[in-house]
């Protein structure tokens, strides 16, 4: 039966190829969407987990924008007083409170911005994944600088070299160069917190405080306490993750609707192809009935053709999803908030199986009417048509 169905399809290569192509595109879009949804959730979760913190204390303003800016190494317009750090550190539920001061030094002639980040030793507990390529893992003295891998290459600096900041009039000595991490750290200049405050005339001020709790179960209580710090607001990373997922989810719903339209159109294409084939092959099908094929066998033959057609289309679509999936990922990463650095496209076996199942269901549904029409042909029609 399958061989016969194959032969029937192979007899109309152009029509079948076009149908398969339409189906493949629709399936590729659907597979990409499913894979992207899962991948974004996983990548965002692992990126936040890797940071090892649950809260960000940021100045008043849009909290999500503030937290995203800090996490991506961008500066905030407002700042926190250092007293906020002391309050946070004094909270019994806080295990680590790491202050950050960030300063952006635009270099319009070079079409780039130098990002300086002031840290104290508490940051090391949160950046446990920091790997040093050369030199030390921490600052040797207040005039030390640790460079992200890309910053070191651009500035042609190695451990022991001097680095001058013309804007701050400060000469620093490179004490370490980080391994490439694929994060925003790669292009940053890290200096001790006190040095950063001095360099950028922000004594006693902070851009943000990253907080890890002793027990993440106390998140709600701690958030309420820290929220009372004047001029500060608390952003929990789970809130951030939820907000980002909601934003992305809204876009995803819209695109899913488009994908459903594409799939429906592709299903109609399969229906059209099969119906045309049944009408063209009416004589052949009647003859089959005349030589003993039952209605059920004819019905099964057309349904098999339909399933084969959609299965091939789905397989091509999944293969196609791998290539444009990367393109879509590159485009999407530019627009979504706090895009994780790892791949967003998670083409897992469940995603592939779900897509295949959908395609096969579509094949069965699209084939029902043509198969029914074919099964209704009478053996005597063969003689009439002859």
């Amino acid at each position: 039966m399958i061989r016969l169905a194959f032969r029937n399809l192979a007899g109309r290569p152009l029509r079948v190829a076009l149908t398969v192509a339409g189906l493949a595109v629709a399936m590729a879009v659907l597979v990409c969407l499913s894979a992207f949804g899962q991948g974004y959730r996983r990548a965002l979760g692992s990126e936040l987990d890797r940071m090892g913190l649950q809260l960000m204390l940021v100045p008043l303003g849009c909290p999500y924008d503030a937290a995203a800016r800090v996490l991506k190494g961008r500066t905030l317009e407002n700042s926190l007083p250092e007293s906020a750090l002391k309050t946070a550190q004094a909270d019994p539920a806080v295990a680590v409170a790491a202050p950050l001061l960030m300063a952006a030094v635009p270099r319009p002639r070079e079409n780039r911005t130098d990002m300086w980040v002031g840290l104290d030793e508490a940051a090391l507990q949160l950046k446990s994944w920091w790997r040093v390529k050369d030199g030390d893992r921490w600052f040797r003295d207040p005039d030390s600088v640790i460079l992200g891998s890309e910053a070191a290459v651009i500035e042609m600096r190695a451990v022991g070299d001097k680095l001058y900041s013309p804007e701050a009039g400060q000469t620093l000595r490179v004490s370490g160069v980080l391994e490439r991490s694929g994060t925003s750290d790669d292009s940053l200049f890290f200096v001790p917190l006190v040095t950063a405050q001095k360099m950028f005339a922000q004594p006693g001020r902070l851009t943000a405080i990253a907080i890890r709790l002793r027990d993440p179960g106390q998140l709600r209580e701690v958030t309420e306490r820290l929220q009372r710090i004047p001029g500060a607001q608390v952003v929990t990373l789970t809130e951030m993750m939820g907000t980002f997922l909601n934003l992305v989810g809204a876009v995803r719903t819209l695109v899913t609707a488009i994908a459903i339209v594409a799939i429906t159109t592709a299903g109609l294409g399969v229906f059209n192809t099969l119906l045309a084939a049944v009408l063209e092959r009416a004589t052949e099908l009647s003859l089959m009935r005349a030589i003993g094929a039952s209605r059920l066998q004819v019905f099964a033959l057309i349904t098999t053709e339909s399933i084969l057609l959609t299965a091939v289309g789905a397989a091509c679509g999944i293969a196609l999803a791998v290539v444009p999936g990367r393109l879509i990922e590159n485009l999407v990463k530019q627009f979504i908030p706090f895009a994780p650095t790892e791949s967003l496209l998670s083409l897992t076996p469940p995603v592939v199986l779900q897509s295949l199942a959908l395609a096969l269901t579509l094949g069965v549904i699209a084939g029902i009417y043509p198969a029914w029409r074919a099964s209704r042909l009478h053996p005597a029609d063969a003689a009439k048509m002859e």
Partner: protein
Amino acid sequence: MLRKFGFPTIAVTLIVVLAAWWTRISLSLSLETPSELKTSRIEAAPMCPWREPDADLRAFFPEATRYETETRILSGLRVELADRLGRMPTAEENALHLYRVFREQEPIGTILIRRVKGEYGAMEIVLAVSQNAQVRGVRLQRSREPESVANIIERPSWLNAFQGKEVQDKWVLGLNIPEVPDEARTSAKAIVDGVRSLLILLDTAGNPNAITTRSHHP
């Protein structure tokens, strides 16, 4: 029926083909970046852009009407380069990016850009070379040096000392390039070495074994 159904599908197929082509380009670009970063060493900085072409052309080649970008692949000439430079060529020296300057159709010189390791950060040199392979001018388009050093190495009287020099000249600070105070010596030497290396690369790029690619800029 085929016609009715076929046209949209052909359109979709065309879109898929175009998307695949576009993806191939974007993938090839994105694949180049990590490999560059992986292989980059501290002495092999990434390609340095020419930041102010109009101002530099006005300063060095006021008669210029246009320029062309040209890339000469020198990886096949590494032995010759190593011999002339007195050291192994760096990864970035496998290719030389030239800006050929023209007055209408007549070539009048070349601009070369190079990032060198200054004492306090990377410095970017703009080197203008005339058609007879003599230095027409040198400018620093970017540096992180403190004012006390920058004032010395960016002083016109010091940079003008490069004018008229050729690749076969001696390139020794304090001999035929004016000496500078100690505090600026490291950065000044980096500039002298950078200019000499560029002239050697330019001279070697004239070798017929070097592969050339071009693009035009009005």
